[in-house]
């Protein structure tokens, strides 16, 4: 019997530094599978964020650039404009993309830059140690919101897919989750769709992945999945928000 399951070629054999129960590993794998399936590893450039995935370039086996906090969409714009033949993706977390990088992502999306953004939304700052993010839920505890997010002072969580979908420029905007196999299969399809739109030079493409952070949520991996399903999914509904045409 032949080999039926193996590491995608687009992933390196390095061990990741991610915490137990973290969903970054799944997201990495899905992106790598898509790169393999499209046969584009030799012309792909990834842009790493600042955050837990800052060292994503150690885990992928394609060319990579490391951005400053929030600036990945500007770097991807630079790459794609001067080398439109390259396939380019940014991989960003919620602090990176929805807080400090809000300007860069909105304008890249609005210009219709032909790259793909993978947005990991786990409702908290991971690498810096559990501070409040723009996507942190009302009442959710964070090290900078020790009694829970007070929306009177900090506003409501930002829904990036909905926000980007208001732009008149055509784009592919989808939100999926990494909480159960059925969601993960849909997430893979969305990532593939996003890369295909890029490949066809069709539009900007954006896939948000509702994810977990057991370490900074202070929960077991299993409880994290349940909490995300019960709390995040109702506020961050899954599906395709916008398609070109």
């Amino acid at each position: 019997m032949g080999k039926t399951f193996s590491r995608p070629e687009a992933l390196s054999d390095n061990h990741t530094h991610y915490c137990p129960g973290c969903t970054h590993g799944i997201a990495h794998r899905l992106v790598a599978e898509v790169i393999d399936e499209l046969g584009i590893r030799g012309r792909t450039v990834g842009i790493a964020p600042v955050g837990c995935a800052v060292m994503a370039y150690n885990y992928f086996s394609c060319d990579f650039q490391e951005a400053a906090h929030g600036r990945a969409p500007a770097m991807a714009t630079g790459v794609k404009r001067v080398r439109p033949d390259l396939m380019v993706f940014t991989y960003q977390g919620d602090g990176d993309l929805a807080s400090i990088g809000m300007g860069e992502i909105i304008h890249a999306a609005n210009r219709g830059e032909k790259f793909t953004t993978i947005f990991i939304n786990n409702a908290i700052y991971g690498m810096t140690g559990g501070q409040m993010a723009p996507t942190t839920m009302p009442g959710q505890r964070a090290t900078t919101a020790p009694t829970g997010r007070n929306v009177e002072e900090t506003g409501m969580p930002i829904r990036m897919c909905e926000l980007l979908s208001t732009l008149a420029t055509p784009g592919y905007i989808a939100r999926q989750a990494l909480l159960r196999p059925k969601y993960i299969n849909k997430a893979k399809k969305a990532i593939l769709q996003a890369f295909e739109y890029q490949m066809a030079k069709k539009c900007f493409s954006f896939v948000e992945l509702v994810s977990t952070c057991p370490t900074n949520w202070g929960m077991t991996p299993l409880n994290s999945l349940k909490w995300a399903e019960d709390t995040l999914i109702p506020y961050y509904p899954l599906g395709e928000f916008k398609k070109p045409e």
Partner: protein
Amino acid sequence: MAKVLMKGNEAIGEAAIRAGCLNYFAYPITPQSEVAEYLAKRMPEVNGVFLQGESEVAVGYMIFGAAACGERVMTTSSSPGVSLMSEAISYIAGARCPAVFVNIVRGGPGLGGILPSQGDYFQATKGGGHGDYHLLVMAPDGVQEAVEMTMMAFPLAEKYRGPVMILGDGLIGQMMEPVEFPDNLYVPPSNKDDWATNGMDKRGSTKKNIVKSLYLDPKVLNQNNLTLKAQYDQMKREEIRFEAYNTDGDYQALIVSYGTMSRVCKTAIDNMKAQGLEIGMIRPKTLFPFPEKAIHDAASKESCKRVVSIEMSMGQMIEDVERSLKGKREVTWFGQCGGDIYTPEEVAEHIISLLKN
């Protein structure tokens, strides 16, 4: 090639294209917006890239992304805009990518003014962004030199794999002068396959390239910074450029001045010469690396009684002049930076009064 009459900002844009730079990203700011306006028309004619970014912050990273692919790329801005780009400049220096930044300096701090200034000397030569890095900084004294320095900037950025800055005050960008685009300054782009993220297929390699500035291991970070330092030391050996004016014979005072201010000083020196007073000048063309030895040697001449740093700032370059003199001579400052520029008469009057005391 025949001379053409061009505005400094437009000439800088054209010079970039002549240097083989077909990628330009920018954000509008007075007094350099004409570069963007010129290249918005011109880049499409040469199948180049023109993009107006949403902010100088974003433009800095568009430059970084493009430079990391190994493509020649440039942006132009003015003081407040360069402050915003300084974050990216630090990353570009740390990640060792060649890129060209032009700062057509206006008055500061803050919004300051829109008239010419040399108030960004510290920012350009001592950092601007965070961390241990330098820019190779060239300061043109007119439109012709702005063209030549812009053309030289790209191969220099590639030689040192780092950002190069053209520091011109607002007058350099705004004035019109006859200019010639020299063919002999074109240098073909260097091979960047060993580090650029240009795609493995493109370079026929199975090894990925990573462009980054994060080194969590203290020894590795130290090594990266030592590599940068070695580059800066090499610049100090190989790239110092300056002009010595009226320094062959004896002179009673030495002026150190650059950019637009040095043009005024030259006229003042010529006028004083006609009256029998000899004054010499060293004009740094590179502000980093700085022509320390040339200034030290020129100031050491027996006949030279005074050294004056004449700047369109409150005295920034004077610190490098002082350092260069190593205590051999005292240096004094003469300058203003609201946007008015001293006349040759005012410069001469100052020098003459200094020599009387």
